[in-house]
């Protein structure tokens, strides 16, 4: 069975924000909505050994998504391939899922009155293409694929490197894995 996942190699990320721009452009997002911010922490360390840490974010497409379980209309869905998305037609904009999400991955679309979020560009990936943020990343810091396919890059990286999941202690089992390191050094 297919299980889509993403690996963020933060050693490679240089916080160029190309992924953010690509996502907003191709998904035609409103000006106040960002699905995949790239956070920068730093400089950290002691001079002259200073560095910046970059953390690309997006919806974690959790295996146990708290946002789906609290939805009172069933508009928040999790597909068999793991993609978590919102069916806008049945969303009433109660924002309960926004409160339930620990990753700030859900946003209110003020124009439509519904909740919107990253859906891993589901139409593209099911057509065999990569999400826009992955395709745009020239540093190859974002790696996307099928976690259940042992030959895929994501499966290989998750199983061979010491990856972490964000806020693992909340037991949401995010399907976005992070290889931690110093930004731009990969």
């Amino acid at each position, binding site marked *: 069975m297919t299980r889509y996942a993403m690996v963020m190699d933060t050693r490679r990320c240089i916080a160029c924000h190309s992924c953010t721009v690509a996502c907003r452009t191709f998904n035609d997002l409103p000006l106040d909505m960002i699905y995949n911010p790239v956070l920068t922490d730093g400089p950290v360390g002691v001079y002259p050994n200073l560095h910046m840490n970059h953390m690309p974010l997006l919806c974690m497409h959790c295996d146990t998504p708290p946002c789906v379980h609290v939805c009172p209309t069933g508009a928040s869905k999790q597909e068999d391939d793991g993609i978590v998305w919102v069916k806008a037609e049945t969303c009433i904009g109660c924002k309960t899922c926004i409160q*339930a999400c620990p990753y700030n991955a859900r946003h209110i679309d003020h124009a439509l009155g519904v909740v919107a979020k990253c859906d891993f560009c589901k139409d593209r990936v099911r057509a065999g293409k990569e999400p826009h943020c992955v395709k745009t990343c020239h540093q190859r810091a974002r790696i996307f694929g099928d976690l259940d396919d042992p030959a895929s890059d994501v499966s290989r990286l998750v199983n061979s490197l010491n990856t972490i999941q964000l806020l693992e202690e909340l037991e949401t089992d995010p399907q976005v894995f992070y290889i931690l390191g110093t930004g731009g050094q990969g």
Partner: protein
Amino acid sequence: MREKHFWGWPIAGYLTLGGLGGCMMIYAVVTDLFFDSGDVFALCALAAAALLGLGSSFLIFELGRPTQFWRVFSAQKAVLTFGAWMVLALIGVSVVYFSFWTGWFPWSQMESLRKVVAGLGLLLGTGVVLYTGIELASFKARAFWNTPALPVLFAVSGLLTGAAADSLLAGLWPFAGSEAALASVREVLRSLCIVLVVFDFIVVMLYVLMMYTSSNPTARRAASRWLSGSFAAPFWGGLVAFGHVAPLSLYALGGVVAAVIASVLVIVGGVFLRFLVVYSDDRRLFAGEERYWERLPKGDEAFLEAWE
């Protein structure tokens, strides 16, 4: 641009009215079922239905698509859906229960049927009072809410505000009993309110101190705001002074006027509590997140106005 709080005053209003309405109904039916003096609080059942209806309208107002509110009844497992059904059922049961006391309907004299409806009201009232706290406490993302103590906090506050509201309406139409009976009920209510004010104060302080000493830095940050930060004025002034200390003094003083003012202040304190809790929706931020959102346009920049 980033919203500071996703839920606003309508949710705080709904949480207040939900707890208030549910507990008003609980007191009304408990006095009927166990003390055989339900007529004193008969009007409270109708008031509970009205307040729950008003609270529900607040909820609908908060929605991004208010006209689609009916979809909230369509999920199968969500706590919110259970809650919506319970609130709807409680409004209906409260109105039906009140109708027994009017004497206008053929079923008005059917005491056993009224007791059955009262039992149903007790169950639904308890469900409505508890589910809001359970809903908020289930959000792992919100450290200040994510504790089993939150339903307790809301339930105790609901019991206090419900008792205060019922004391305001006790003995009004369609009650037709003696003034002496009413006076004794009011005395019991006054004693109950004194006990509940003290108990609620203890629960509130324990909750805030529990969060203040929590191992979770997000919960600690929110609790610090209550005790000495930007929420200190509504907490110490609105919730503690107006919602607890002043009513306790007035209840202790005695007299009808003092009791009425005290009851109103207790309800105001309940409103403050719900606002403070709703606006304590702190989420754990990732390193660099605060700076990222702060650096984005706020929406009033000149270039954005030119864009639009």
